[in-house]
């Protein structure tokens, strides 16, 4: 049980209970829905981009502790970052989540999720909000992002 406790450490439990940037955002903004067909959980992500920078970001939705914490930490880490940089972080995050390899400098607080790769069926939980973000950054807002 230790590996799991480690994963669900205080930070995740905290973000699960009090997710940051957890609200609907007023227009004008981009928004898109993310869907995990394995469990049926959904979230909606809102992003305001100004001068190629993620000026504001928020989300709502239901999901497991991992998906909620992952979305919450994502909003904290991405807010204020240039779009290009956000895309690089997405790549690094995906690598970490699937392989466990951490690139400390760039991932910051996201590192608390590095243990997820040991639980293959939960990888989709952690990456759901990120796929949704990616959809928006790639200008595909409005479509539903799926973790499949």
């Amino acid at each position, binding site marked *: *049980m230790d590996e*799991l406790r480690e994963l*669900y450490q205080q930070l995740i439990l905290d973000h699960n209970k009090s997710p940051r940037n957890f609200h609907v955002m007023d227009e004008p903004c981009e928004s898109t829905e993310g869907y995990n067909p394995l*469990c049926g*959980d959904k979230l909606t992500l809102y992003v305001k981009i100004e001068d190629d920078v993620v000026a504001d970001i928020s989300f709502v939705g239901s*999901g497991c*502790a991992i998906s909620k914490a992952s979305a919450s930490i994502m909003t904290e880490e991405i807010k204020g970052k240039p779009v290009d940089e956000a895309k690089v972080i997405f790549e690094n995050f995906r690598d970490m989540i699937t392989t466990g390899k951490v690139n400390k400098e760039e991932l910051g607080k996201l590192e608390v999720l590095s243990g997820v790769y040991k639980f293959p069926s*939960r990888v989709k939980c952690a990456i759901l909000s990120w796929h949704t973000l990616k959809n928006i950054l790639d200008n595909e807002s409005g479509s539903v992002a799926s973790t499949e």
Partner: protein
Amino acid sequence: MLDPNKIKSRFPIFSDSENTDLVFLDNASTTQKPDVVVEKLNDFYSRYNANVHRGIYRIGELATMEYESVRKKIAGFINAKSEKNIVFTKGTTESINLVAYSWARKNLSPGDEILVTEMEHHSNLVPWQLAAQQTGATLRYIPITEAGELDLSDLEKYLNSKTKLVAIVHQSNILGTINPVKKIIDLAHNVGAKVLIDGAQYITHASLNVDELDCDFYAFSGHKMMGPTGVGVLYAKQVLLEEMDPFLSGGDMILSVSMEKSTWNDIPYKFEAGTPNIAQVIGLGAAIQFIEDTGIDKIDEFITSLTKTAITKLQSVRGLRIYGHGPSSDSTSVISFNLADIHPHDVAQFLDMDNIAVRAGHHCTQPVMLKYNISSTVRASLYIYNTPQDIERLVGSLQKTINFMS
């Protein structure tokens, strides 16, 4: 009374070194296989593996005899009039689809109604949505009550002369509720509707008499009753099988083929195109023999009593909510619950760390989720190798989880 520890020793999976403390509570999804089933498969592949219905040689005749003897055994097990009523499929889902294609598409027209319930498994729902779409028929739902039972108070509203087919689950795979199918069948027949029963859960532990029930179709899966994966059964009344068009077509289901047209083989072969799932059917025969040797009534009694114990113990866990299983309800073997506001997948993940296997999710019953306004539940489902200690392990692990998460 059945001794689950003795029974457990017959299931090789529990003596595997990595599984010695496995508490398997995902039985509504699939069950473990007793030694006799695994051995029967071995025996087939290692002694008389051959195609059926064709070969004029020793092992081919042996394979055919074994294969066909299972048809007889199943007819006896569910009290069908004849082995002609037994069609082999790959599972409940295919059995239901067979009826949706071969019976419903032929017999339904715009204005007709198909009646299902809000507690159907997707496999007894989506095929009817599609059949309704394609024939212009309308799909109607018998609602469920907060207690997780069918609300039959307004049945006349749903069941009327337009109703051509009633498709209902015998026992719910999410709530454990056993539906009063005999009553519904009789009422449906009064208005001239046919009735299909999804028996995937019920047949695994309770004795079935299709002749007495008088249902028109009954569908179930082998893998949920200790048989191999990849085999299921469709029981149907003989006149229906005779009237129905074939479903899959190809080798073995024809009487003759010319370049212009073909004529069909007799029932049930008309519905078994291509090389059948020979080993799986033979393995299912061994599973049913195991059930008969154990005694279906003893199995039912044991599971019902263990379910009661489990419910009492689970209710003692702080913040745990069980769906269905009201005090007066007829329900058993399957228990769905939520643990405070902890997401079911998180709960299942923590249970897994204690080597306790449950399911989390919508259990292929999204309309039930809608009803309770939830997106998923944790489901523990019991079978004959589950012990009172398994229940204690479950409850203990749930308690640890809630302590950790709050």
